[in-house]
């Protein structure tokens, strides 16, 4: 399971030892490490920016020294990588965003963020898969369903996917 800067490897200790797994990982061919086909999957995420769907768009933009239109233009300018899934089922950590969009988390988190909210904080973008507490700046909202326990796989995005946001 990959995370932003680590990898968790689970295995059966009765079948293979720690040293055996470590030796195997260190011996994997370098060329194959560049062969992640999932990296090339581009997923388009349509977003309604601002207004009730993105109540922090204007304040975040002014904090960054941008206009709201500039913020949206930068957020939709290029595809960004899903660096990991975490926090809640299906929540993607997407980035790295350009320095122009680097903003700390809100000083006061919300106790409830609507499902589908698209947010930015700490150099990353995220999408809330369900109604959850959250401290990121909400800049828009998508109707894309990120987590469906009945679906296979249940999460719409995977680490390594590329996300291209687009403004509706």
């Amino acid at each position, binding site marked *: 399971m990959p*995370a*932003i800067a680590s990898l*968790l490897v689970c295995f059966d200790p009765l079948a293979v030892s720690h040293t055996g797994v470590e030796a*195997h990982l260190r011996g*994997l061919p370098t060329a194959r*490490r560049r062969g*992640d086909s999932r990296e090339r999957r581009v997923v388009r995420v349509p977003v309604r920016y601002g207004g009730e769907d993105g109540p922090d768009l204007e304040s975040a933009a002014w904090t960054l020294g941008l206009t709201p239109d500039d913020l949206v233009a930068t957020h939709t300018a290029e595809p960004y990588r899903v660096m990991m899934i975490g926090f809640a089922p299906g929540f993607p950590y997407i980035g790295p965003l350009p320095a122009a969009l680097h903003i700390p988390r809100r000083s006061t988190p919300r106790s409830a963020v609507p499902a589908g909210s698209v947010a930015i904080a700490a150099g990353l973008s995220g999408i809330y898969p369900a109604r959850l507490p959250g401290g990121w700046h909400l800049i828009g909202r998508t109707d894309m369903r990120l987590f469906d326990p009945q679906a296979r796989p249940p999460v719409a995005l995977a680490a390594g996917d590329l996300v291209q946001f687009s403004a509706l």
Partner: protein
Amino acid sequence: MKWIFHPLGDSALLMDAGGEHVDANRAALDLAAALEANPPP
């Protein structure tokens, strides 16, 4: 890229990468793909 191995109990191994997070994340993703294609015997 430098990996640090952390044996966790008797069932998992956590690997942290040093350096920039962008590069470390790419390395973690690539290594996960390589491991999936080449599981331990």
